[in-house]
């Protein structure tokens, strides 16, 4: 439930909601797993797991995981994508807390970079070019 709990964490944040909220229901937020929704041109967040590591001891698997999560912040303008990335960073960098079945023990910003891939955005079947800013976080977590 890690990915779902991570999405809940995002949709529960007022700043994120103001930028990518799609109405009262969290289901309508423009936060997607893996790829941007087709023809989506409004500010959006796409996230996916880059890789993860589990921890084992001699007696049993440890309830402690490290997961690296990639976030694409999409907007029509570079400034819009940056604003979205800043909101994401404000929420996640250093975050600790429990959401659903996930105890987020510590979230660390690992990478941050801009891209100039408007053509890529067009390939993703949007109708207009989009700008993207990337943030990658290391999430240390355990199951509740």
């Amino acid at each position: 439930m890690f990915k779902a709990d991570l999405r809940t964490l995002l949709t529960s944040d007022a700043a994120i909601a103001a930028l990518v909220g799609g109405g009262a229901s969290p289901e309508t937020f423009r936060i997607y797993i893996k790829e941007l929704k087709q023809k989506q041109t409004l500010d959006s967040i796409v996230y996916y797991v880059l890789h993860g590591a589990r921890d084992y001891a001699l007696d049993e698997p440890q309830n402690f995981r490290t997961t690296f999560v990639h976030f694409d912040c999409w907007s029509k303008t570079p400034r819009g994508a940056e604003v979205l990335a800043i909101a994401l960073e404000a929420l996640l960098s250093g975050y600790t807390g429990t959401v659903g079945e996930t105890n987020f023990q510590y979230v660390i910003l690992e990478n941050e970079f801009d891209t100039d891939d408007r053509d890529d955005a067009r390939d993703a079947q949007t109708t207009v070019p989009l700008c993207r800013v990337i943030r990658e976080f290391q999430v240390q977590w355990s199951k509740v």
Partner: protein
Amino acid sequence: MPSTPAKAALGSSFKLGNGASPEVFTTVVSVKKIGGPTMEVATDDTTAMDDGGNETAIATIFKGGMVSLEGNFSGATSQIALETAFFAKSEVNVKVLYGSTPVRTYSFAAIITKFDPAAEVAKAIVVKVDLKVTGAVTPS
């Protein structure tokens, strides 16, 4: 004919005795690495001039050596029991078990000489523990 397979380390364990009678041994949880006991037989050089230019020796004392543990440190009851024994500087009875089926067990008394927790920002909290064997080691 296939060779005898190596055994995975999973199931190996370190057990700490509670000093009661009969003594109860409890597995210390979250241990990721066990080393030792580093057993040795000490020798004394007996080389004499008439040994034909060959070095000779005799076995003297058995040395139980050290045991080292590394693992995650969560403050679990079994880990705190180890910490308590360290601060008490008391001799404890322990068992080191290698493998699960079959298992090779080494039983002995020891003094905990190091209890070394550490934290690093992008890692789990860990602890390293050293024990000095005192007396005989009994394999079974």
